[in-house]
């Protein structure tokens, strides 16, 4: 089939006049991408895998020594690392669950016709389009104990959201929910509007109540798109660095990526950082793989 497409270069086209074959054109388009991928993705991936078995430090000139699985052993037995993972897990669960609930809820509200629907939808999408650094700084102001509007509105006095070790992580998660719920909303809206209207009519004829209709028709039919939103948001939340780093310096908000950053660029423990990065990568892959299995099962219908 590919060759059939390849052969369709119009002999009268300008490209043909220059003596280019369709094969040349294909290469012109594809080779840069492949080179880019190899140089910036594949090569570092393999190179860092090599480093993860050494005690290499990018900040020193000492000879590099092969240490086998020592880095991995150290990391997996390090209690601090485990606490970073626990923090990350908490953060992922709270923030992704919040985004799914808020995003899907908003989509349900928006999935009908009302005045200024387009405008409202666009406004709701704005947070997603901002830079995370800006959002972080902005919410730090909102959370400010002395004059932040959040404490003012909720009458919380000078409660310090971001310096209280118990609430800091959740405060960051709330910001993440604010920023990314629109993404879930967008996908849910696409899913909801793809449910054929006649199915709701059939359900009404079949005397299904609104809750029964929602759980037996709406949810199952939207679930593949919800699952895609879930995969994307989980992956992203797992890797969160920017807003957490900007908003709080509490040890209780030290997500695994922050830990990785510190290890790599503050302690210059490059080899070990590579090992940690690999552990994170494997975890993310494992989680998404589980989701993808579910997604495929949902899509089979």
């Amino acid at each position, binding site marked *: 089939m590919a060759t059939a497409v390849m052969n369709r270069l119009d002999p009268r086209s300008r490209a043909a006049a220059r003596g280019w074959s369709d094969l040349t054109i294909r290469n012109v388009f594809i080779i840069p991408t492949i080179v880019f991928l190899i140089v910036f993705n594949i090569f570092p991936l393999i190179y860092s895998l090599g480093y993860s078995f050494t005690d290499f430090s990018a900040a020193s000139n000492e000879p590099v020594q092969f240490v086998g699985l020592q880095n991995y052993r150290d990391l997996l037995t390090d209690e601090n690392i485990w606490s970073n993972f626990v923090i990350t897990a908490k953060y992922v669960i709270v923030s992704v669950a919040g985004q799914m609930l808020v995003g899907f809820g908003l989509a349900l509200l928006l999935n009908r016709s009302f005045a200024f629907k387009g405008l409202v939808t666009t406004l709701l999408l704005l947070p997603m389009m901002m830079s995370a650094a800006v959002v972080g700084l902005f919410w730090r102001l909102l959370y400010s104990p002395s004059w932040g509007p959040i404490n003012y509105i909720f009458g919380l006095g000078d409660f310090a959201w971001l310096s209280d070790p118990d609430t800091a992580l959740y405060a960051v998660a709330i910001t993440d929910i604010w920023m990314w719920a629109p993404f879930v909303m967008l996908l849910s809206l696409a899913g909801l509007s793809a449910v054929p209207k*006649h199915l709701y009519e059939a*359900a*009404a*004829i*079949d*005397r*299904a*109540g609104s809750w029964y209709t929602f759980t037996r028709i709406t949810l199952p039919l939207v679930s593949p798109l919800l699952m895609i939103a879930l995969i994307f948001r989980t992956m992203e939340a797992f890797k969160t660095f920017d807003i957490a780093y900007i908003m709080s310096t509490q040890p209780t908000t030290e997500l695994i990526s922050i830990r990785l950053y510190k290890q790599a660029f503050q302690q210059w423990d490059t080899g070990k950082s590579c090992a940690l990065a690999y552990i994170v990568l494997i975890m993310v892959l494992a989680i998404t793989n589980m989701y993808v299995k579910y997604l495929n099962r949902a899509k089979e*219908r």
Partner: protein
Amino acid sequence: MAEIVLRDVEKFFGENYVIRKLNLTIQNKEFVVLLGPSGCGKTTTLRAIAGLEEIDRGDILIDGKAVQNLPAGDRDIAFVFQLFALYPHLTAYENIAFPLRATGESRSQIDGQVRAVAKAIQIEHLLSRRPSQLSGGDMQRIAIGRALVRRPKAMLMDEPIGALDAKLREEMRTELKRLHLENDSTTVYVTHDQVEAMSLADRIAIMNEGVLQQVGSPTEVYRHPANLFVAQFIGSPVMNVTKASVQTSGAVASVVVGEGDGSFGFPSELPQKMAAASHGQGDFMLGIRPEGVLVSRQQAPGYVPVEAHIIEPLGAYDIVDLKVGRQFIRARTASGYVGKPGETVYARLDESQTHFFHPATGESLNISFGGA
């Protein structure tokens, strides 16, 4: 089971006056077919009965109770959609069980009912499949099963077999008839296919542009169309309709078709009958079905010579276009009766099969001769 009454029902879509003062009674256990051309408001009428569309004026009564303000679920009516509207994520079994589960019936009861219905519509072997794994005919069977399973007061069907191929349509038609006889359910059935309507209906209600034209049994609407629209909509090939006038010379009456294109002898009571229908001597529209145009190869009393113009052999019979002056009249003859186009044959109009319509309003003048 139920009686459905529509009383002065009106419906607008914005400026579009879609149902106009519709009055129709569907008796208990009756199979009524709503027939009409595309866009005449059949679906809208059906959806209004089901409660999927609100009406602007009038009443809809089910068993004497006004239901026009009740939601669809409270009317206890089943609806079969043209494009099946099966739940794509549920198996055939779950689709049929859906109305029972939605109202919270017990598991064992549901199972019994679903299997009984599956048996009646012969899809027991398909119960575990999803709609995407089913053919159109099977999907429609399941949709019908879903409608039957809860024993609704009435069944409404919107072109349920319109999306199937011709052969399957014929099969399903027989099956629907059988199901109706077995279940005795009051049924309103929408179609634009007159053959389907004729073969299924106890009574046919013919609609055009939102106005009910005539209600009657298939034979009634075929033999005594109330107006030109019904006359031309029912029957295939279409009824010949031409402008005509009466001529009398002495005791002999004849009908002149077109602008003096040809004249056919008629019984001499015609002028009296015209007068009785208070139509006098003016022009009228003459309608006659192809089988009412009698063709002979020999000269015979009452037959006038005409030229065969086009011959369409349809297997069981031929349709011959006869040239009468500048007019064409289609006749139905035995297969191969007229040899070839251009031949001169002799034709006569069977007065018992002629219809007379008012030239302006198109209403039937209710004139008939013997026989029918």
